[in-house]
């Protein structure tokens, strides 16, 4: 039950920020590997 709540919170809280952070992290990782 606790795990389910944690997972639910993980995908419902601060979603735009998480998307932005993931996109930025991926772009930075690609930049680092592309050079």
């Amino acid at each position: 039950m606790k795990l389910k709540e944690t997972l639910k919170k993980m995908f419902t809280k601060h979603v735009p920020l998480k998307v932005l952070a993931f996109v930025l992290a991926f772009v930075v990782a690609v930049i680092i590997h592309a050079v």
Partner: protein
Amino acid sequence: MRNWADVWNGIKNIFLDFGNHWVIILETVFLFLLIYYVLKTLSENNAKKFVWTYVILILGVGFPALISDHFNVTVYYVFIMLLSVFFLLLFSMEIKRAIWNANKRSAATANDPAARTTAVSARAEVYISSIVKAVQGLSKSMTGALIVLSNGNVPRDVVESGVMLNAQISNQLIEGIFVNKAPLHDGAMIIYGDKIQAAGCFLPLSQRDFPKDYGTRHRAGIGITEVADVSTIIVSEETGIVSVVKRGEITRYIDSESLKRFLREYYWKEFNSEGRKA
């Protein structure tokens, strides 16, 4: 200087030869955790304008680096780390508070959220009405008062300059502390959430130019909002006029309804930051 075809080939190569670049997944996860924590800290502490500054700075250094011949991956990593540490240091107090409250928060979320929100709301209304009642009494009796509404980020030396109380908020106690000739009446009272944290505290004075009728109490009430993200309530000893100060801006002639709104804003912001209200 590299040409765009080289850059594009470099990017394409990552995905075509993923076996040699699988470490990109680990790097993305690590960078995601770091960047998300910085963005969350900025957005939860009224610094949303810095979110885009942070994003633009990271990309702004990254893209020129793609076409530069002298780009060093380590330098870029160090730049991202230093930039993140810089933004996190701006909110070191808030981060410390979040860590202290982590256990409290997880215990609170175990209860029914709807019931908890109602209970917190009811309690906040009791504190608000006690403070408003006290301020009205002080204003009526022309008793000077200076109340700081803290978010936990009042500098420690300011809190320790007074007497620690950690007392429950009540209008009688607030009025009693500011009665003339009472030992603590001259300093500021610090309210932190549901407690009167300290009284008789010395605040830094604002050095700006103000009208002559602003005394030391007003300068202190404005001064603390210039150095910390707090609000203050000031009752003038000469006129009984109630003023509120936020981010160095003073608003005078506050009636009880405006004061209630001001306090509600403080309490809901506080409860939000502690995760007690949805």
